[in-house]
């Protein structure tokens, strides 16, 4: 009828099918506030205007006029117009979301993964989805933590790689909904295994019925506007079997010769298993194993304990067997890197006789909390006569056989201080000591005095490992005040680099003026590094080190080093440098990783697949001087099968410091080796380990969650389907979506008629006010 009226008014309406009232003035939000302001002002003025009037009828009449005038004024302000519109009907949208998280990699059946099952089902029902497109606008998405749009013709080439970190069904839906804004959907289809890690699983696991009901109601409210929700379960619960390592927990560091515990949590889905063997490997070596009984669906924990026997960085692997038809084999092992440190340094300390040098060294070692000290001092020599029976003496036999034949490998460092062992031990014991250093990587400290550096066949094995050859002179021990000089090597060596700066360090050592007595040596070996010299003889080797075979040796050719501690530092009220020297000496001798000449370092030991990895390689020579201009390369000596990265060169970024940049995509453990070469010789090599793994819990529990999928379908007034059910069960409503494809506005506020009514109204209003004598 309105169309007829308009035509009578001479307005062309052909081609239009909708008439609406449109307010042009409402485009700006400020207009609305102005209107509200005007209404409030009007109400206030109306109140004061009618208040003095008597008679209700009169008041009502005046107020009515006021309001009519107000409505009219506001209407004009809002610029009303009649809008003639041409509309077109739109297809109601349906969104189909396919789970692309990692759990979809798991098997759905003997020969198919879950994702493959889903895609096959879509292909099999291609006709249905094609037909759906006739009446609905169908859009395809993949989702894990959020939904990502797929190409429009996805169904023609359905392919999805299930590599999403986590399944978060509700979170993905809510994000989509917020992107839709005011738009509505006719329906939503979720194709998933239900293995949710987000809000939906929390709702599903809520034990309190009241709280659960509240959460379900909230979910229903939040999915409104998404139409009917259908969920499609991609696999059957029954028959699904999987044994998974859900977590591996351990301390950040282990300590050699100290028990280390790894706590492994396991879960078996699908059946009870009697005994599951859990094994821990260090590299390829089995270090611990235990069996655990698992119940279906229950997480169980097992502790594996082993005692590391080597310092360093290693790749460890926890493994459980792969049973037939398991949904996933990826979760049957877990790799982790671990650094094994030295806990306590075990020292065997032999002194030729009690002395102040022995006392102050002993006190320094005792104060070091990382030292376990076993000492034997020769308190009495064979020609000493204590004038007492053995029973009256506190002296114990010197157990040389036990120490040097059996127990030697249990020590990290052996110290001989002013000791000549010919009267106490078999020559073979010194050979054992030599072999302990050379072959087993033990460390040895040799400190001078009248009983040391004696050229004797008995001492020959010692001479073989020490940095010097002994002097043939009859008296190698000399009494003389020493002037010291720090060598260039000593300036940077961690043992003697005590004061930080090069100049300060040289000044410190040169300032030590209290040492006296030294052992003369014949010559320094070519591969020895002399750190401190004195000027009293030639060579004036006082402190020297040597790396021999696998071990390290430190030599101090004086028994008066204690004077530095007591006489020099003691007078100044401190013991800083003496103590620091010995702390560094011990750490260097046991090859503390922080004191290596060449070291490969990373910021962390676990990375995400594809994450940038920066590796730094410090290369120094024996004297700890940086080696510049070396050719460095990095290669993987251990990597997941088929994922070994190619050997790559490094770049020198500072003298002696080289950088490698790489990305590793395959999850698993990697052992990388860097080599530095200069002038055809290997200048240094080191190894590092790291693990690449997704920060994801997807594979920890591969249960098919039919219950969660049912909950979601119910909230959306839909239904749960199970592959291979027919999708024809899914019925979607028509939500009558239209689109305006053409419009014509006919303003009603700016014509003579409107103006006439406006003037008339205000005229009546004015007249009435005059009649009633209103101000």
């Amino acid at each position, binding site marked *: 009828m309105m169309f007829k009226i308009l035509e009578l008014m001479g307005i062309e309406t052909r081609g239009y099918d909708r008439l609406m009232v449109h307010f042009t003035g409402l485009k700006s939000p400020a207009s609305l506030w102005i209107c509200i302001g005007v209404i409030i002002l009007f109400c206030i003025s109306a109140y004061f205007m009618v208040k003095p009037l008597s008679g209700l009828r009169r008041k009502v009449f005046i107020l009515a006029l006021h309001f009519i005038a107000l409505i009219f004024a506001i209407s004009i302000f809002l610029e009303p117009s009649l809008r003639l519109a041409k509309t077109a009907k739109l297809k109601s949208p349906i969104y189909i979301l396919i789970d692309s998280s990692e759990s979809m990699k798991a098997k759905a059946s003997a020969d198919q993964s879950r994702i493959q099952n889903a895609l096959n089902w879509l292909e099999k029902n291609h006709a249905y989805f094609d037909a759906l497109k006739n009446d609905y606008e169908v859009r395809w998405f993949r989702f894990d933590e959020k939904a990502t749009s797929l190409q429009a013709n996805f169904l023609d080439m359905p392919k999805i790689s299930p590599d999403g970190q986590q399944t978060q069904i509700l979170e993905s839906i809510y994000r989509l909904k917020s992107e839709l804004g005011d738009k509505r959907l006719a329906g939503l289809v979720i194709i998933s295994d239900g293995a949710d890690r987000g809000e939906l699983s929390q709702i599903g696991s809520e034990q309190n019925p009241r709280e659960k009901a509240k959460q379900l109601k909230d979910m229903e409210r939040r999915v409104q506007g998404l139409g009917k929700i259908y969920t499609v379960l991609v696999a059957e619960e029954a028959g699904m079997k999987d044994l998974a390592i859900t977590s591996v927990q351990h301390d950040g560091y282990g300590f050699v010769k100290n028990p280390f515990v790894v706590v492994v949590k396991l879960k078996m889905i699908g059946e009870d298993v009697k005994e599951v063997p859990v094994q821990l490997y260090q590299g390829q070596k089995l270090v611990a194993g235990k069996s655990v009984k698992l119940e279906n669906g229950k997480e169980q924990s097992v502790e594996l304990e082993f005692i590391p026997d080597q310092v360093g960085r290693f790749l460890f692997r926890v493994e459980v067997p792969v049973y037939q038809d398991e949904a996933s084999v990826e979760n049957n092992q877990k790799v982790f890197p671990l650094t094994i440190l030295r806990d306590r340094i075990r020292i065997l300390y032999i002194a030729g006789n009690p002395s102040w040098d022995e006392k102050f060294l002993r006190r320094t070692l005792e104060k070091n909390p990382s030292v376990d000290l076993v000492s034997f001092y020769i308190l009495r020599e064979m020609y000493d006569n204590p004038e*007492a029976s053995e029973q009256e003496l*506190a002296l*114990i036999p010197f157990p040389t056989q036990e120490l040097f034949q059996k127990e030697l490998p249990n020590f990290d460092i052996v110290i001989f201080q002013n000791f000549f062992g010919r009267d106490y031990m078999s020559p073979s014991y010194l050979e054992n000591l030599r072999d302990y250093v050379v072959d087993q990587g033990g460390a040895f400290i040799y400190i001078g005095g009248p009983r040391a550096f004696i050229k004797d066949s008995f001492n020959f094995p010692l001479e073989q490992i020490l940095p010097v050859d002994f002097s043939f002179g009859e008296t190698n021990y000399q009494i003389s005040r020493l002037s010291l000089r720090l060598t260039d090597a000593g300036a940077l060596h961690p043992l003697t680099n005590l004061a930080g700066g090069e100049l300060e360090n040289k000044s410190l050592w040169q300032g030590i003026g209290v040492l006296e007595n030294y052992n003369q040596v014949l010559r320094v070996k070519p591969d020895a590094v002399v750190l401190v010299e004195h000027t009293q003889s030639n060579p004036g080797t006082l402190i020297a080190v040597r790396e021999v075979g696998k071990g390290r040796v430190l030599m101090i050719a004086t028994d008066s080093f204690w004077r530095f501690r*007591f006489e020099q530092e*003691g007078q100044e009220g401190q013991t800083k440098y003496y103590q620091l020297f010995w702390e560094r000496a011990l750490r260097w001798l046991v090859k503390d990783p922080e004191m290596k000449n060449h070291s490969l370092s990373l910021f962390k030991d676990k990375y995400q697949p594809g994450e940038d990895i920066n590796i730094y390689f410090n290369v120094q020579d024996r004297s700890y001087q940086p080696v510049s201009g070396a050719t460095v390369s990095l290669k993987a000596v251990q990597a997941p099968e088929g994922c070994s990265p190619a050997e790559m060169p490094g770049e020198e970024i500072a003298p002696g410091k080289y950088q490698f940049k790489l990305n590793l995509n395959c999850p698993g453990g990697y052992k990388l080796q860097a080599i530095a070469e200069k002038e055809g010789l290997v200048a240094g090599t080191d190894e590092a380990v790291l693990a690449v793994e997704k920060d994801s819990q997807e594979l920890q529990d591969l249960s098919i969650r039919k219950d969660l999928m049912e909950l979601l379908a119910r909230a959306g007034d839909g239904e749960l389907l199970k592959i291979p059910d027919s999708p024809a069960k899914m019925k979607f409503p028509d939500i009558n979506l239209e689109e305006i494809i053409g419009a014509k506005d006919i303003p009603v506020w700016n014509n003579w008629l409107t103006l006439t009514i406006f003037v008339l109204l205000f005229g009546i209003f004015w007249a009435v006010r005059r009649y009633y004598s209103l101000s």
Partner: protein
Amino acid sequence: MRRRDFLKIFSAGSAGIFLSRKGFTQFPSQPRQIKYDFIFAQITYGNGFAWNPRPTVARSLAKIVNSRTSVPASPERVEIRLGAPELFQYPFLYISGENEFEPFSDFEIQRLRRWFDAGGFLLADDALGEMNSGFDKSLRRELARIFPGEKLKEVPTDHTVFQSYYLLDKVAGRKASVPNLWGIDRGDLTPLIYSQNDLAGAIEQSGGEGFRYPVIPGGEQQRELAIRLWVNIIYYALCANYKKDAIHASFISKRRKRRPK
């Protein structure tokens, strides 16, 4: 010649050889410099010789230590004042007297305190061998200044000093007036030990070979005990708590039990 006399001569001769070996290396035919690991440094104070009631203690002690132990001890005594710059060359100090002495200066107290902090060991020995002597009063006064707030404590019988070389149950010197030693502890060590029994008097030599003073009341047996206590104190000064190491502890405990009383 009786066998006993022959053995004595033989032992003396051997001891002579062995003594002369102290401080030497493998070729005893050549004279060489002797390096002593123990030097007896005695604190001097005042203007007279009150500090020196036992002038031959160092020589006598050296003979004992050299013959009985592996430590080469110097027979020469170093006399040192607390304010001397050489104080820190001597980690072992001895102080003795019979009568009261003047307080040390603040500077001397400060030096001694730092000397203790650096790791020094002091043996105090009351030459009067009596309680509440003048020396005792003065010593306690000075120790209160060096170690404010601390008092001398009885050294317990399981202290390392009683098993550092000999296994001892008792203390004695020239006298046995006080049945215990006194000490002040620093952490796990006792850097000051005080005897009120005139330890030095028990080993002080007369002009000839013998000892100057009789030992009361226990006679030569008591003197031997005093000698052993000297050796133990020297060894404690040099070895600290070495004999408390676990490897020694059980052995010593068993030996103590098996020892005849």
